[in-house]
């Protein structure tokens, strides 16, 4: 992989550029959070899907869109508390 100028891009840079690319030490929560965010973003982008949900919930499309966007903040709730062992392992 190379940048437009020809210089190579490291994996770190690519990760910074593309949101949601995982890494080896990714936790399940992180993975799922990313997956849910991607899903919500796709639903918001496709009007027909957003509209389908809005009809099912009998709410305005604007409300459903806001709810989905808000859910992107923490789609799977706060991350689980790490145990002392995990904390030590990370260091």
């Amino acid at each position, binding site marked *: 992989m190379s940048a437009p100028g020809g210089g190579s891009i490291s994996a770190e840079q690519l990760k910074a550029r593309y949101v949601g690319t995982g890494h080896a030490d990714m936790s399940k929560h992180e993975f799922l959070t990313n997956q849910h965010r991607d899903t919500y973003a796709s639903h918001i982008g*496709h*009007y027909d899907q957003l509209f389908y949900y809005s009809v*099912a919930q009998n*709410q305005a499309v604007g409300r459903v869109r*806001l709810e989905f966007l808000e859910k992107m*903040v*923490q789609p799977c709730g*706060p991350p689980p*508390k790490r145990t002392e062992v995990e904390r030590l392992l990370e260091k």
Partner: protein
Amino acid sequence: MAVDEAKTSGDGGDAIPVSSVAMKLLDMRLKPSSAIVTSVAGEFTAAGNHEIVIARSGGTLELHRIVQGKSDKEDEEDDEEDPPTVIKLVARVETRSVLRSLCTVRLTGDKRDVVAVGADGGALSVLDFEGGGTGKIVHCCDYGKTGCRRSTPGQYVAADPKGRAVMIAAIEKRKLVYVLNRDATGKPTIASPLEAHRGRAITFDAVGLDNGYDNPIFAAIELQYPESGDAAELPNADQVEKQLAYYELDLGLNHVSRRWATTTHRTACCLAALPGGNDGPGGVLVGGEDWIEYLHEGLTLDSNNLTRLAATIPRRTLHPTEKGILITKITVHKQKKSKFFALAQSELGDVYKVTLELDPADKTKATGMVISLLDTLPIANALNVSKLGMLFLAAQVGDHHLYQFERIDLPDAQTCTYEQANAAYQKLITKEGGAKFLTTTTAAQLAPNFKPTMLKNLRKLFTLDNPSPTTAVMVGELAGNEVSPQIYTLTGSGPRSALRIIRHGASVSELAVSELPGIPGGIFTIADNSAGSTGTNRNDQYIVVSFADATLVLSVGETVEEVGRESGFLTNAPTLACSALGNDGALCQVHPAGVRHIQHGQARQWHCPGLKRIECASSNESQVLIALSGGEVIYFQLDPQSGNLTECATRDMGADVCCLDVGTVPEGSSRSLFAVVGCRDQTVRIVSLEPGNLLHQQSSTALKSRPHTCILQRMAGEAPDGKNKNAILDELVLVIGLDDGSALRATVDSVTGSISTSHTKRFLGARPVAVSRISLESRASSLLLSSRPWISRLDPTSGKHIMAPLSYTPLDHGCSFRSDAVKEGVVATAGKTLRILSVDTVGMGGGQEEAFNTQKIDLRYTPRNMTLLSAGTGNPAGAPESRKIIVAVVESDYNEYGQEAKIAMGFDGTGGAAAASSGGGKANDDSMDMDEGSDDEGDKKMDTEEGDGMDPEEKEARKTPIRGPVPNAPGHWGSCVRLLDPSDACRTLDCVEMNRNEAALCCASVRFHSKGGEPLLAVGTVTNMTLQPLRQTASYIILYRVVNRERLQLLHRTAVDDGPVLALAHFQGRLLVGIGKSLKLYEMGKRQLLRKCELRGLPTYVKTLQTAGDRAFLGDMMQSVHIVRYDASANRLVLVAADPNPRPIVSQELLDWNTAAVGDKYGNISILRLPRGSDTGAVDFTGQRALWGSSREDAAPRLEQLCHFYVGEVVTGMTRSSLVAGGAESLIYVTVSGRIGALVPFTSRDDVDFFSQLEAHMRMDVDRPTGRDPLAYRSYYSPVIHVVDGDLCSAFTSLHHTEQSKIAEKLDRTVGEVMKKLEDTRNALL
């Protein structure tokens, strides 16, 4: 996977490759989707035009123009009505991509707007509609990946009001700013993008700030979510701040920076920029729950005050105080003299007018805000205020409307102000600087209440039909007296729910019907040519009806009356042709024995020589052409000097003549130059009527069948090319109706009289086709009568010939009719009746491929499902039982009170004073055998109440749908079951309201063989269901009997556990029910249903269920299709096969015993087939059940995917049916956004090759307005398999001619042949 393929293809010795036997389908669009994602107003084609660009769901961009009716007719005292204001389609661009956002850009120094489109192509495209063309692609610059991804820009597009830059933003992180410039030649250029990314920031809305000529600034609502990490260190999701951020583009440094940010309301979701610079205060309005804030950098308010300029919105009386009302849309309109106002719409549909109070000394300083209620409108996706004082509203649900502002100063409206909010704040000083003050609770205390009623300040002007959401479809000839089937769709939601009956063709309004003494053999009208009447558009003076041995002459005046011999007509003989001659009131009648010329009340006769009789004849204002038996044709012409009809020429055609037409006299000349003669030897000849060359044959054409009627017609229209508008298309068209029921159209050279070689032939019906000339929208059209009446006309906008059937009973004879009351009518006969009709051209042409007309029947709640019931009289006395088809519809709305509860609250749903009378709302509890079938008292009451001093038209213009009161807690449902009579225009027979939050979700007709096979209606319900989480307190299967073919009688209800009942089906004389994760088979008992057997352990929820023989196909809500077989010997349901792909099924239709088509939640259609022989072991006749003792998913064979296609919209309903009586079947589907499409199976190898090749060429050559590759788009989630995109193929017609001929050459055909093939394929379907 590879192993599997080997197995299936290597099945037995005579393995046939799947691809060679597989189904190939052609996707054709019958009705484009009508839902609007967003729209923008501006001047796109030329300065001064008021236009709207609409982004339709499904990837179509449309340019519509508001054509104002009362333009320069104000002073004219004309008794003709002003033409109404309409929205006219000007151009349509198929983008083949997912459209997400639009914004107008007015480039510096330009007087027109261009439109910037955010789609899923990973490119910013700028389209220019100059001159009304098809949208020139100015720019299309790629910046990233395709698709609606989280961090690919495209969700928001915002432009600088001065046209210097465009920002395109993604939902998360990425924002790109493009600088627009002009090169030396004045052509707009676009620079490479500047990044304004912000990691972890979710964007809620973005807008270009009006900043005068300072550096362009874009405002965005952002929320930066915390970095993933330890929960203990992270703030709670609710504590994260939402910010309004300004991004400044420094034009000097060519750099974007985040200039300023402020915390805003956490529920903020929409933005609108106010006029700035020297014209206004600048800054933005931020809409959130209950509050609208005005924010701007440098806005300073007194520190004692509420720190932000905010005001709450007036609230509905019945809205719970603890529930917030979200502002979902704000739009700003600049008025003259740098005045402006904003319109904000809430999620309930109430539209508020927002004005800022400006410092009188400094117009750019805001000191206060006023929010007042304007009106209640449908919930909108876009509000476009035009400079004409009109509001275009793109509704989410139901029809789009154009409104006229009647007033915009609202002195008596409910109002909230900043002062009021500030005063309350002073009383209750909170420390958080006002942030904690802007809550729903304070808003509810502050806000005045109102009751939503009809429109007070706006008036409906024009309506665009919008059947979205469409939830189900059914095709069938259920009306009972029509030839071709109707399409029944369940559409709309909440107060705009409706059943729509869609018929192919133009709708016809019947103006008069009267009985005739016999069956007529012909009908004619005679224009008034008396000296007093002048002009080209003359009214008719007589209607002449010819019978086998008599002629009836009716005079047209105030009423239509019979006149006897005083008309001068021979009334004891049939009439073959008649017309008015010249300008002095002379008439001509051709009867079998001769030609009668009536002048000043005196008749002169020309008698047939010898024993010959006149076979057929035709006449116009100056010419008469008759054919004698034996093939002799005689031509008469009116001598303008003497006023005599003189015999001019005779010719023997050499064959018996069966039809002829003398043509029409073109304006400005004295005679028609050509006549057409159809002979029994299956030829049609054009003969000259020029003086020196009389009756000389100019050309002829051979036919496959005998001609029945023929006409020569002048069809005029504008040239299809938009550029040279003055080029008038004027062609002479020959239309021939053949004995075999088809019609043929060819153009005739208006100088030489030669017939063009490319004919268009179309099968119209089972009877010989009678053709006659009529006028539609003051253009010449033809009426073609077979077993169905048809209209053929030249579409003035596209220059194409359009053929459309009329939704009317078969007619025998017809001709045009014009009188004072009926400007453009048709007088026709059907059997022994005479009818005066007028053809409605709405939906015909105007860019639509096919003409459809829609009849709407209002429903109460969102319709979910429908089924057909065959109801008998149930008469005991052994009388022959007559059965009747009834449509049953289940309707339910989440978060809505039932009808009874609403009325008890004083809400009547449609405006007007409440007056909750006891008569309204039919409530019935467990004993649901209802008495009366009357429905929707609410509506009727409204009609009478609103009707005080208002005519119906005015009432209609003021009517607006109002959403019912929102319940405080989740789990409330309003629901009903309804019976409709399709043979009586879908009148409601019975409507049973469910109560106690019970919601009917599905229905099916079932016949229990053990109970005599009487058709019963089974309805699946849930009680107190909440959607998040999906939970319910109980679910039931209710059985109804239809009594007296009109009433529902409750038989019993059976409580079921395990989950909601979402699917029911009749299965081998029993009822098969999908309940949550299980499938159960029920037998009917006396007091409830009796469970016979069940299959547990299905993946999520059974969503769809269909049965064929002993097989059941069930669609799971997440895990695609499963096939289940019933083993009668062991009384077991056995899982036979499953689809390995996870598809969230929304709709399903069986194609045959082994094959099912499914539509999933992402907008794909797939066709799945059970591999041959894979269920042989399922039913065990030996009794050794060990083999299939456990049906494990991995053991079950897998379904093969035959076809796959991305439609682009969620497919909510499918049915296998033909759209013409006796036609081939195709798969008709509807989508949530209102599209009706058909997947047509190919029948020949040649067609497959032709369309596949054409599609391949089109994929390369077609325009890509948003940079999306058509193949990639159709393969959105999974590669397209064996489906040809018919839309893409029909785009061939709009290509440039050189490209067309290039493709046609590669296909080894001419352009005409390709066009004809495309048209024929379409015509075969409809």
